[in-house]
């Protein structure tokens, strides 16, 4: 009796709740302390360990790359074939090839001094078309700068692309920005801006707005693996998860940020490796496999909307072209490396092989489409080049919703100046309206 009472006394000094101590209650006391089995820190999900063990970041293989087709365009597991209609698949193919053709013409036009700047999408057409096809046309897209195919899929015309690149009076952006800084309200594509990653937390805020509006739409946010190093990327991933936003983060990991290869961009398991750390659903896919991209995006959209949570897709691909017309990538990578991707793992060839295997395409259609496509691009190009630039007074518009007096004052001053020194300004290229 006494020893038990003494033992119980020691326990009582610790357990404030214990009122009566008897031998039967000892086991109850032990059970009350089962909370001792797990750490009690706020937000903790962990168990205890008495082993001094650091987690090695390279202990496991990276997150696997989901694919549907092999590099030759043959479906590996038929259950993963999204079974898209012939019409849809041909539309995908035509969109990718038209993008490719437009890129060639516009890149060349910069070389010839007709437009000031251009960025091609070579090798990444699959990431654009595969993902855009799986979205609702009203889902809001925030891009980085290498997603022209998503706009093309949605119906941005060749004229619209060219007008923006030429900055002419029909540019929706009113000649304010460099080429490839497209935007479209009708097609729900937010105007591109040059600073990298800024679109990411914006996409999260937009998704939150959509959630509150209960409009059944999600937000799609594209960015490159280089951009994922920006602070805004971290901010966006964290906010999206903590605030339960229906946003899909789509990373185009194309191996290079201008000249910086991905092994100099990060040391961990790419961008997908970060997703779970932020508490979000994550997948890595073969970006050159249009069907894999399509499937992942379709599923991501479903989850984002049904569960009101963000999803991260890392699409592995390769930037076949230079970063832009201001870049010559032979300075930092071998021609052989580029040729490998162009010839052995290209989203367009892989899809074409799939179409051929289904009997949906052939040499005759290929030739016909190629010519047709080139002709359409060339005529749009010629049209865009001929158009005047917007009236120079557009400099002063849209700074604010309404033009404040100090800007009006500056406009008037410049009007007087231009009138006086007209012959020194390229007025004939600019619209008078």
């Amino acid at each position, binding site marked *: 009796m006494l020893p038990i009472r003494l033992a119980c006394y020691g326990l009582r000094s610790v357990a404030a709740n214990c009122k009566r101590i008897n031998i039967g209650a000892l086991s109850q006391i032990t059970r009350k302390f089962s909370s001792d089995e797990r750490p009690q820190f706020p937000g903790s999900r962990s168990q205890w360990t008495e082993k001094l063990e650091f987690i090695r970041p390279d202990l496991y293989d990276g997150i696997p790359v989901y694919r549907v087709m092999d590099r030759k365009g043959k479906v590996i597991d038929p259950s993963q074939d999204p079974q898209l209609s012939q019409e849809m698949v041909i539309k995908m193919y035509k969109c990718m090839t038209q993008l490719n053709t437009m890129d060639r013409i516009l890149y060349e036009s910069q070389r010839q001094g007709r437009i000031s700047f251009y960025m091609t999408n070579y090798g990444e057409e699959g990431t654009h078309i595969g993902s855009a096809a799986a979205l609702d046309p009203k889902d809001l897209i925030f891009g980085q700068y290498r997603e022209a195919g998503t706009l093309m899929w949605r119906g941005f015309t060749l004229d619209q692309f060219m007008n923006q690149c030429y900055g002419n009076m029909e540019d929706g952006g009113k000649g304010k920005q460099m080429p490839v800084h497209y935007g479209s309200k009708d097609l729900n594509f937010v*105007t591109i801006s040059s*600073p990298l990653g800024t679109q990411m937390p914006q*996409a999260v805020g937009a998704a939150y707005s959509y959630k509150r509006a209960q409009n059944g739409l999600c937000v799609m946010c594209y960015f490159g693996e280089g951009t994922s190093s920006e602070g805004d990327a971290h901010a966006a991933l964290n906010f999206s998860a903590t605030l339960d936003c229906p946003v899909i983060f789509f990373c185009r990991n194309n191996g290079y940020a201008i000249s910086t290869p991905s092994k100099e961009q990060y040391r961990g398991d790419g961008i997908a490796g970060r997703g779970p750390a932020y508490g979000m659903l994550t997948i890595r896919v073969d970006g050159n496999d249009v069907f894999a991209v399509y499937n992942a995006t379709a599923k991501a959209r479903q989850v984002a909307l049904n569960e009101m949570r963000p999803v991260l897709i890392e699409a592995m691909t390769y930037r076949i072209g230079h970063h832009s017309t201001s870049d010559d990538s032979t300075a930092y990578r071998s021609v052989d490396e580029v040729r490998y991707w162009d010839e052995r793992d290209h989203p367009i060839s892989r899809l074409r092989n799939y179409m051929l295997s289904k009997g949906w395409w052939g040499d005759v259609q290929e030739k016909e489409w190629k010519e047709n496509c080139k002709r359409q691009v060339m005529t749009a190009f010629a049209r865009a080049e001929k158009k005047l630039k917007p009236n120079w007074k557009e400099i002063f*518009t849209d700074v604010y919703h309404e033009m404040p007096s100090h800007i009006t004052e500056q406009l008037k001053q410049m009007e007087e100046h231009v009138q006086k020194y007209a012959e020194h300004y390229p007025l004939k290229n600019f619209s008078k309206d």
Partner: protein
Amino acid sequence: MTAAEKKEMLRAVIGETQRMNLFQAINNSLDLALSSDPTAIIFGEDVAFGGVFRCTVGLQEKHGKSRVFNTPLCEQGIAGFGIGAATAGATAIAEIQFADYILPAFDQICNEAAKYRYRSGGLYDCGSLTIRAPCSAVGHGALYHSQSPEAFFAHCPGLKVVVPRGPIKAKGLLLSCIRDKNPCLFFEPKILYRSAVEQVPVKEYTMPLSKADILVEGDDITLVGWGTQVHVLREVCQLAKDQLNVSCELIDLVTILPWDKETIAQSVKKTGRLLIAHEAPLTSGFGAEIAASIQHDCFLNLEAPIERVTGFDTPFPHMFEPFYMPDKWRCFEAVKKLVNY
């Protein structure tokens, strides 16, 4: 009209008033914004429990967790999130906990928010974004709890920058900013949160942005300030009257961008002398813009150089705050110099 009649008339026009300090007036303004606009949301660090300065007390309880909520600790995220929310149709009211910490959000504010409408040819805008932040000296804030960063943002076309001097103005100006179709920065002088108390109209009202207030009419010299400094300058007006027999015209600029050059210029054309005072450092402080513009527009009216009394070109020190501030004695001395030029 008797005093009683005047009071009656004011009550008829203004309606019922309530004694409120600055944070209460701001709280009231935010409450009205959320009550009148179902898309309005308030977010930032610690806003859910009421905010470190109590500006958002009671708002989550009243309007719900989806409308008043905490974000993770990340100013660039708060600003970016706000821009996106505004672009997608919400009235987004962001709080940055101290103006000193607004700098990580500079890229989002100046490269993005300010330029959203312009660069998209008007297709997209984030006009329904307002960012609020406590600013200015509080007595002991030192480098990172005392800054007045209005000049950084004044240099960024596309933004509006507003600084209230008290509860009545703050309530109306904040509501105007929230409803304004341009991204607005609303800097609230934190020392006034408790110390500025007024009888604030209870009803909903707005006050015009970009319109300076002439608080005291005078003939000899124009004094311009904003926020806390307006109250310092008011004392300077009295000192000048008592000790120098000088009649000062006191103007609260109210809005830093776009600023009301017209009212200042008109005043200076009358008085011929201008003193600008602000807590922010001298070089490239907003006083520099006012001085450059006014000397241009009022050159022949000026009787003396334009004077600026400001914080020094140093970071904001802790122990030495009484020496750093553009206090009434430095301002008074400047008035003396100008009238005797």
